[in-house]
């Protein structure tokens, strides 16, 4: 089975702080593999364990994405394609999908895996757009994958409950929390990662006029309508809350 996993490198959400003076987030902290993409890597590795085959990871971005790729290789991915792109967030998802699809297509995958959405821009667009350009079906919010060599039974989370579907390869699956528990890279895996092949590719960005542009991230004006208690001792906060609960006749 040919398995391709798309991953994105993002700022570690735990290090993102908001600068009160400028109203801008600080995004220059540690960079990590986007959290849902870790579920996608794990799913790819498990498919390989069950059905044999090869897992390739593809990551586009600045030189720092090498670290994200190394982590995937250390988890057990076989090889990687690194696409040089100054900043994956400066182009819209459809343009990015057009770039990625060229490399994915060359690998003729049976299964393509992505995360449900990235931690930073959170659009969730890339998976469906890749699938459309590849001419294959996709499933989002995937929490369970069972199945044979060419036909899968997949569960996806919806507002109404867990939808169970069957679908044949080739297909694209978007990994959701609950799908699995991503493994940590082992020492042995980290050593092996150094010897695994990483193909370097330069992206050809299409010249078509963009259909959208977006502003720098900013912190919205607080629209808090309620009371917020801050900077007081726990006991004082508790007293204020209980007084409020009584006023609202909730106690």
């Amino acid at each position, binding site marked *: 089975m040919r398995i391709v996993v798309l991953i994105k490198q993002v700022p570690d959400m735990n290090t993102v702080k908001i600068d009160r003076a400028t109203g801008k987030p600080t995004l220059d902290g540690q960079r990590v593999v986007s959290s849902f993409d870790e579920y996608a890597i794990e799913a790819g590795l498990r498919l390989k364990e069950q059905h044999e085959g090869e897992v390739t990871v593809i990551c586009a971005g600045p030189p720092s994405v090498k670290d994200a790729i190394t982590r995937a290789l250390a988890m057990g991915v076989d090889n990687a394609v690194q696409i040089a792109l100054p900043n994956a967030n400066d182009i819209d998802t459809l343009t990015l999908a057009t770039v990625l699809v060229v490399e994915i297509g060359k690998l003729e995958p049976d299964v393509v895996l992505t995360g449900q959405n990235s931690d930073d821009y959170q659009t969730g667009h890339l998976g469906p757009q890749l699938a459309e350009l590849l001419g294959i079906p996709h499933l989002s919010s995937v929490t369970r994958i069972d199945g044979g060599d060419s036909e899968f039974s997949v569960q996806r989370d919806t507002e109404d409950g867990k939808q169970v579907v069957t679908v044949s390869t080739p297909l694209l699956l978007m990994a959701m929390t609950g799908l699995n528990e991503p493994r940590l890279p082992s020492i042995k895996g980290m050593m092996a990662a150094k010897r695994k092949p990483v193909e370097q590719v330069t992206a050809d960005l299409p010249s078509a006029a963009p*259909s959208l542009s977006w502003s720098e991230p900013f912190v919205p004006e607080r629209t808090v309508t309620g009371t917020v208690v801050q900077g007081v001792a726990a006991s004082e906060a*508790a007293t204020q809350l209980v007084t409020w609960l009584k006023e*609202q006749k909730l106690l």
Partner: protein
Amino acid sequence: MGKGTGILVVAEVGEDGLRTGSLELLTVGRSLAEAMGGELTVVVPGAEVVEAARTVAASGADRVLVVDDERLASFTSGAWTAVVVHAVAETNPAALLIPGTTSGRDYAPRLAARLRLGLAADCVDLAVEDGALVATRPILGGRVQTVVRFEGDGPWIATVRPGSFERAKPTGEEAEIVSLTVELGDDDLKVRVVETLHEDTGGKRLDNAERIVAGGRGLKEPDRFNLVEDLARALNASVGASRAVVDAGWRPHHEQVGQTGQTVAPRLYVAVGISGAVQHLVGMQGADYIVAINRDPDAPIFKIASFGIVGDLFEVVPAVIEEINAARA
């Protein structure tokens, strides 16, 4: 196709009928139609959706297109993409609005890729500036926003976060309902739906609870969840949870509140160590009173809290329990 006019809204029908997000899109769709000129058309895909179509027709739409097909009984990306592509060709709108539900977020990107159109995800505000659509969307977990500006001829597409606009109310008028037939080929039906599983709630349901105390990842360890249970007991409330702690196996799924859990509307909802991700908020924003306890002053939960405490829950919750017991004594 050339620049279109008017607004096309896709309504969504779930197992319990028309999803309320559809009525919210009617509200914003109406104001955009007025700002940009043109009609507000709503397409209702599904199986046996006549009743939902009537509700939409009575809530301010100029025209309603119904695609009633038994192959649309349960959502699939392929079929929905085909149906909405057809509705876009039929109406050539300036903008297309899709509910930001799991389904909407699933097929909208596919549709945008097929038609090579720009798409903004999970928008919380939409406006018209110099004739162009401008969308505001949260990023980085909801603490930060970005403004997306559409260019070119469109149609411009946005998925809209549920709960961002008021629901449209009956206007006293009834729009015309037109039935639309869409050809669905094998390529549109590659995914076969077997069934939709409903969680066994063990008889306990949160959706009728009057009071709920819910805990999230801020509790750090499953054992510390007793703080939530103790507070719930003090307030005579039921226990709820965020998806993060359900996924981690700390709490059963029937306690999960949110998009892929229960939708609740209690009188009082207390969120302890819950950040307030959109998928959580859509499940509980109908509560009359929301109390949030979180140490991060920028946590999105504070935006909808009626009473918020910025502080360490491990100190605040025991103090609150003590204070409640003292007040009762």
